[in-house]
């Protein structure tokens, strides 16, 4: 039975090897080479590429990535938990429909959505035009850090809501009743029963928000207007300029950072399960 199902995974495995592992392997090789574009004529083995990691621009971009990803994740946790909790507690019959509406923006293209958001942030946008409002030119959000955070939260919030909602669904209502029965009020019940039991959803959601926030480049570029450079933008620049070697190096460094953070979260998560 199990073996037969395992065969069904073969197309995926091929996909994975061909489009993820093989390119990653080539990227690791490229780190140690110096060449122009993918031209194999003047190929040279070198460690010089690693010097790029000491560059101030790289470090600032890396710091920016962490900073914005962290801020966005925290905001997503707060907004996501509140939305998921309100939905979980509500008496709406068709909660699935509400969830679908919540993830509806994800159905449209990320770039289009971000562009539209950028447009709204301009002093003269479609809304002010339609309403005929006169706006102060200096009030623009466009190109600011806040704009980037808004864009990141707007884009990745559904990834936080869904796992938290799923985790909340699994909390038996009877447990909350038991807590109330034992003398804990609603507030205490939430912090001692509901929150710890749905914490797994928060962890999953945080990973799912933090990682794309950190590695993405479209949102900071469009909403940050070049004022905010994240590591994704730098990698993109290197690849655009056909410097595949340094581009690969930075991409692999990000990959390692991400893997390490997932491992830490996983370890924390498993401990949280057993110790409590």
């Amino acid at each position, binding site marked *: 039975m199990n073996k037969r199902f395992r065969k069904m995974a073969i197309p995926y495995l091929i996909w994975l090897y061909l489009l993820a592992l093989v390119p990653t392997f080539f990227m690791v090789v490229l780190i140690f080479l110096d060449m122009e574009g993918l031209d194999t004529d003047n190929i040279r083995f070198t460690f010089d590429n690693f010097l790029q990691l000491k560059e101030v621009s790289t470090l600032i971009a890396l710091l920016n990535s962490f900073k914005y990803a962290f801020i966005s994740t925290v905001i997503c946790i707060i907004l996501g938990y509140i939305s998921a909790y309100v939905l979980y507690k509500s008496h709406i019959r068709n909660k699935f429909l509400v969830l679908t509406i919540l993830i509806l923006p994800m159905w449209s293209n990320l770039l289009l959505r971000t562009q539209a958001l950028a447009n709204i942030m301009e002093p003269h946008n479609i809304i002010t035009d339609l309403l005929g409002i006169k706006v102060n030119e200096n009030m623009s959000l466009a190109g600011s850090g806040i704009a980037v955070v808004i864009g990141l939260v707007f884009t990745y919030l559904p990834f936080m809501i869904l796992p938290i909602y799923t985790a909340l669904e699994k909390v*038996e209502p009877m447990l909350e009743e038991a807590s109330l029965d*034992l*003398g804990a009020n609603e507030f205490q019940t939430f912090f001692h029963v509901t929150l710890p039991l749905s914490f797994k959803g928060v962890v999953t959601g945080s990973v799912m928000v933090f990682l794309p926030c950190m590695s993405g480049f479209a949102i900071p570029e469009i909403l940050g207007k070049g004022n905010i450079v994240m590591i994704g933008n730098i990698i993109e620049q290197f690849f655009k300029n056909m410097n595949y070697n340094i581009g690969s190096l930075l991409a692999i460094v990000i990959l390692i950072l991400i893997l390490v953070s997932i491992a830490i979260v996983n370890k924390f998560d498993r401990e949280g399960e057993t110790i409590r």
Partner: protein
Amino acid sequence: MSKVLIELNQITKAFDGEIVVNNLNLQVYENEFLTILGPSGCGKTTTLRMIAGFVKPDAGEVIINDKVVNDLAPYARPVNTVFQRYALFPHLNVIKNISFGLDKINKFTLHKMLKDAVKDEANRALKLVKLENFATKKISYLSGGQMQRVALARALINRPQILLLDEPMAALDLKLRQDMQYELKEMQRKLGITFIFITHDQEEAMTMSDRIVVMNKGIIQQLGTPKDIYNEPVNRFVANFIGESNIVRGIYTNDKEVTFLGETFACEAYPFRIGEAVDVVIRPEDFDVVNADKAKIVAKVTSCIFKGVHYEICANINDLELVIHTYEEILVDNLIGLNVDPYEIHLMKVEEDE
């Protein structure tokens, strides 16, 4: 009897327009083991939840200690509950589950109990339910019986005046259930707490209760001691729900005399009019089986099944089937005579709708 602790005063509750509890009146006394017995959907759990505070009655009053508590939150009532599927906290271990109620008090009141005191109390509760060695075990490693004990200890730690038990033994196997029945009764006697126990199992109700409330369709059918309810059911529902019964239509032909199955029998005095139709209830074990020529009722045996302690015999008389319990095997198609002592004949008023 002793002091009234809980009073349900004409409470009614409907869900989606369907009446679940209908104008119910009930008084529960101090130190009493009261069982609410009824089939599923009879409103017993809803009644319990109204006492616990999870459900608010649409009409009527829930009174605890002479105070109307309709609007009092569950955590403010002197009531604790053992839930049907235990509802233990999966993220806490056994001892933390048990001390949950005290931990809350510890953190949020002026009288700060020392942590050690909480620990002592939790350990005492653990001992009470005989789980001393399980303090740090995870809930998921416990068996059904152990979980039930944890749930019990957890509910008792706040020293409630009233303990509500919502079919706590439904998930246990028979042997464990019988042991637990005895233990629960012992515990109630020792602790002097009022137990309100919900079950659909009549044997459970019989063994443990001081008084039983038989409920059906949101209405109390009968309230009384286990003996009263078994020997003197007030209607067909109670007679059928509590044990097995033969119910035959008869006529109260004279004072202390009832006619059924074409014969006249002596019975005890009942306040019926002479000539009034009545339902005659005879328990299967109350028939005396004799030779066919020595009795007024003669029936033909249609089946005889060995049940362990006794044989269950089905016998036919005028196309009416009677169930009889005897200690002797009687072969199918034999004719048997059936005698009944006057005090074993119970008469009930005929209900209009049946």
